[in-house]
């Protein structure tokens, strides 16, 4: 368990999880892996904020 928890996902995997999180609830393990990755990774944290910005932009496009 501890081994799996500390096993970091790659940026490629993290971006997939972030995208999937927009569409369905991630598993408990996926959320933990993602959180750990984001703590350590500036690039993916940026990516995460950019996803939020795109979502907001689309919602303004609509309303």
């Amino acid at each position, binding site marked *: 368990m501890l081994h799996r928890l500390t096993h970091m*996902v*790659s*940026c*490629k*995997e993290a*971006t*997939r999880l972030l*995208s*999937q999180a*927009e*569409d*369905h609830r991630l598993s408990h393990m996926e959320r933990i892996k993602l959180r750990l990755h984001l703590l350590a990774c*500036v*690039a993916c944290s*940026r*990516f995460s*904020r*950019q*996803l*939020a*910005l*795109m*979502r*907001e*932009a*689309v919602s*303004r*496009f*609509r*309303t």
Partner: protein
Amino acid sequence: MPYYSRLDPAEGTALDASDFTVELDRHRRYLLRVAQLQLRDAAAAEDVVQETLVAALSAREGFTGRSSVKTWLTGILKHKIVDAIRQKQRQPVVAASFDEETDLDDFDPLFKDNGAWQAPPADWGDPENALSRQEFMSVMEMCLERLPPNTARVFVMREVLELETEEICKELTITANNLWVILYRARMSLRECLERNWFSDPARA
């Protein structure tokens, strides 16, 4: 002259109806853009928008003012588009190109072999800066138009029309996994396109 100006407004509500008609017409271009992005067919897009406006006009008592007219119209458009997709379902072309666009990950040029970014995302600065600019919205629209056709269709269904993922899978007869791949591709391409065409300009970030 808008096509529905031929319709006689109900007696006694003439002013309301014509105001409402003007209001609906203001959103026509937006509805056409969304329909065009989704259906990729100018004639079909024109049809669903006409149907949407006719439905809106005849249901104007149903408009409570709780949401904006645009949001309300988007909701009607959503149903008209789903109907149009159901009618088009016979076309085998759609399925074939979906396979191409969901072709999985063996090579992803955005990442190195070890899964790290080839070129990490840039700092986009304060989001409000971009969001409050009309030009930014135009760039976003251009980026949406550049997506591969089916990718754009799915993205519009999910993000603009806000259909549930199960519903999209059902209407387009694709698997949930295909859907996630398509949405992932759409978001990655949009992100890159916005970064290249908007955020790389230092005057804007």
